[in-house]
């Protein structure tokens, strides 16, 4: 009885927040605190439903919820909740719920409060619909809707020119990815139509199980591109990955994500850390059977993911803005997730498990980091780390929770045991998989990327912690601890960041493995991998102790570096320092020299060059994006002059057009 009822209600998961959006949009202004209670209740209900479904699935992974309704022609709308979707649903609704609660206080008094809650409710609805859609078109539709909400929320404070510019940039950049994604869908559709022999009643062409059942035939289709025989499956999957690059801020379309921090911090936490940016990872995971059957696609993902992880790490170290550090950190961690998926060419379906595991853990600790940062910004009023310092004294809870999040991000834990922060388990799993991959294919580049990125992660996050929370205030600010409505979500998230990974480590992976191995899809991964010329390893044995400990060692090394540079130097300055003291002023100047000196030599010239190159690269990509815009406008300005406004010119154009068209058509049809 309860079973059937639950299945019936699965579609409510995105519908409730959508309803909340409508209510808040129209009546939010008349309700207290922008009608926040409506979306909170709706999302709480969605969370409860998703959690119950997840728990039921956990008990019986085969019992996938799948409902499809005809939309038009061979397309459908529907709900598909398998283990992969279930964990995403629970995570998204949970994080969204906490952030909505937190935002009640954070956004209090903002004139656009009602608009804020309406937009976030719509965003949550779209994101949930993205996760549980059972066909690629519905996924794309939600994908676009999510992008639209992100655009609106980044530009939430549109009075600020920088926010409006950031919104525009985000929209345009992710659009590049969306165009690739759509192109992939169109190619896929036309291929499927060809293979299925046109429209057939009763089958929903773009539903995932239909698509997957055509994988062998798809991979047999080839096109000749610049002399290379390329499988259609590779083209389609790489175009999908193109969409993921845009949404998940992978190199080189990452430029929008740091700028997106112009939105309210809660938005950064919800959209640009925990949920929307992971949509790209989710897309790749969702269509993973296609990826594994496509030659070369996973390799591209592994390289690009690993490179993004490293690249964003180098950027993270040089930022002084609290939120920007976190933004680059997000890009870097998303790179890890992509890397994890890309390693599927060696470890098979386990890749989805480790990547999603990191995704979930990351959602908890990154949301926590952002909310803590928001708490600091809210209380102190600045987000420039050079002006902060010693915040621990005024905001003890925030400092504690943020330190926990930092430990989770850096991945602290004891290898070989089940003691550790959640980041430790998931990130180590990816790094170990990269090691396996290296051993397997003698290609150590992904492993090198992941280890280097782990070191950088540890450095930048503890630099942030030390610069913000320890030492003496470097400017006059008046801080206070945030109210309980903000600190309670922080504490809940902190608990999750600490223990979630350790508690669910083995169960999680096994659960996710069921995604593509249950009755609904019923795929043979081995044969699919063979199509993609990927060899999957047998169950791997235990790696040597050194391999297990190395990520931990570099994390500690990073902590040590940050400690030496950003903590110890404060002690040297002494407790007497104050801006009125001329001696201190001198020291302060010396400190700057000192800082440059130590940074340069302790991190080494190599790092300096890498960081410099990263920034140059960033500028170049940025200017390409801008340049295309400027070029278009320029061409447009010139072309519009064609329209002289004189009728005679118009008539001449018509006749010339007719004459040339005749000649052209004649010529071409004769020649061909």
């Amino acid at each position, binding site marked *: 009885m309860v079973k059937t009822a639950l299945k019936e209600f699965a579609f409510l998961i995105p519908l409730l927040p959508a309803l909340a959006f409508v209510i808040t949009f129209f009546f939010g202004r008349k309700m207290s605190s922008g009608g926040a209670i409506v979306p909170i209740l709706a999302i709480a209900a969605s969370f409860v439903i998703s959690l119950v479904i997840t728990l039921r699935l956990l008990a019986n992974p085969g019992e996938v919820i799948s409902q499809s309704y005809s939309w038009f022609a061979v397309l459908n709308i529907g709900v598909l909740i398998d283990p992969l979707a279930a964990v995403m649903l629970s995570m998204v609704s949970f994080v969204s719920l906490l952030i909505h609660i937190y935002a009640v206080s954070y956004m209090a008094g903002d004139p656009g409060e009602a608009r804020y809650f309406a937009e976030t409710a719509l965003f949550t609805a779209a994101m949930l619909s993205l996760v549980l859609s059972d066909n690629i078109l519905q996924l794309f539709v939600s994908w676009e809707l999510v992008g639209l909400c992100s655009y609106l929320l980044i530009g939430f404070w549109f009075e600020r020119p920088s926010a409006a510019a950031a919104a525009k940039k985000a929209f345009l950049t992710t659009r590049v990815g969306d165009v690739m994604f759509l192109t992939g869908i169109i190619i896929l559709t036309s291929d499927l139509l060809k293979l299925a022999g046109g429209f057939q009643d009763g089958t929903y062409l773009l539903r995932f199980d239909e698509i997957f059942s055509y994988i062998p035939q798809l991979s047999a289709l080839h096109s000749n591109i610049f002399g290379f025989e390329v499988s259609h499956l590779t083209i389609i999957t790489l175009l999908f990955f193109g969409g993921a690059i845009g949404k998940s801020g992978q190199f080189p379309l990452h430029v929008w994500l740091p700028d997106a921090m112009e939105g309210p911090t809660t938005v950064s936490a919800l959209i640009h850390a925990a949920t929307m940016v992971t949509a790209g990872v989710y897309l790749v995971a969702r269509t993973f059977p296609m990826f594994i059957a496509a030659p070369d696609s996973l390799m591209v993902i592994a390289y690009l993911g690993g490179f993004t992880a490293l690249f964003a790490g180098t950027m993270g170290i040089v930022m002084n803005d609290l939120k920007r550090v976190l933004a680059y950190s997000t890009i870097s961690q998303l790179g890890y997730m992509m890397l994890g998926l890309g390693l599927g060419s060696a470890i098979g379906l386990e890749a989805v498990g480790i990547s999603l595991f990191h995704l979930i853990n990351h959602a908890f600790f990154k949301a926590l980091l952002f909310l803590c940062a928001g708490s600091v910004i809210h209380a102190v009023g600045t987000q420039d780390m050079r002006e902060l310092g010693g915040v621990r004294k005024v905001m003890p809870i925030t400092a504690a929770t943020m330190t926990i999040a930092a430990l989770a991000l850096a991945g602290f834990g004891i290898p070989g045991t089940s003691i550790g922060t959640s980041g430790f388990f998931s990130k180590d799993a990816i790094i170990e998989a990269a090691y396996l991959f290296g051993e397997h294919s003698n290609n150590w580049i992904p492993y090198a990327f992941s280890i280097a990125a782990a070191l950088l992660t540890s450095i930048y996050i503890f630099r942030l912690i030390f610069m913000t929370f320890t030492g003496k205030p470097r400017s006059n600010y008046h801080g206070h601890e945030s109210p309980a409505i903000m600190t309670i979500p922080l504490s809940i998230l902190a608990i999750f960041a600490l223990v979630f990974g350790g508690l669910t480590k083995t169960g999680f992976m096994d659960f996710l493995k069921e995604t593509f191995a249950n009755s609904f899809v019923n795929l043979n991964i081995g044969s699919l991998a063979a199509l993609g010329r990927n060899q999957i390893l047998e169950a791997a044995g235990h790696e040597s102790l050194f391999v297990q400990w190395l990520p931990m060692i570099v994390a500690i090394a990073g902590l040590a570096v940050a400690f030496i540079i950003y903590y110890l130097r404060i002690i040297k300055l002494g407790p007497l320092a104050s801006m009125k003291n001329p001696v201190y002023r001198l020291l302060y100047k010396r400190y700057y020299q000192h800082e440059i000196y130590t940074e340069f030599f302790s991190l080494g010239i190599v790092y300096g060059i890498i960081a410099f190159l990263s920034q140059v690269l960033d500028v170049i990509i940025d200017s390409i994006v801008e340049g295309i815009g400027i070029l278009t406008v320029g061409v447009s300005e010139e072309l*519009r*002059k064609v*329209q*002289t*406004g*004189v*009728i*005679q010119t118009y*008539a*001449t154009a018509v*006749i010339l057009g007719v004459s040339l068209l005749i000649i052209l058509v004649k010529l071409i049809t004769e020649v061909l």
Partner: protein
Amino acid sequence: MIPLIFYLGLAALLFSIGLYGVMTHKNGIRMIMCIELMLNSANLNLVAFSSYTDTLNGQVFAIFSIALAAAEAAVGFAILMAIYRMHDKINLDELNILRW
């Protein structure tokens, strides 16, 4: 019997003269006259074809198109008159506030 192609050649020539007029004249009235020329050269074509294929459709079409040309001229002159009332001139190349 005059070969059909003579008619076609004449029609094409008349049509081109009309076109040249539309493209070079500034005066609106002259332009409308040139357009009439083009329409009538097409009519000439129709009538010639009608005779040479021994079907009457072409001549019927020509009669319709003469009526249409009259209506077209009426609307055109009315617009010109409205322009003349406003600007005191009918030189259409000076009418270019809408451009680019």
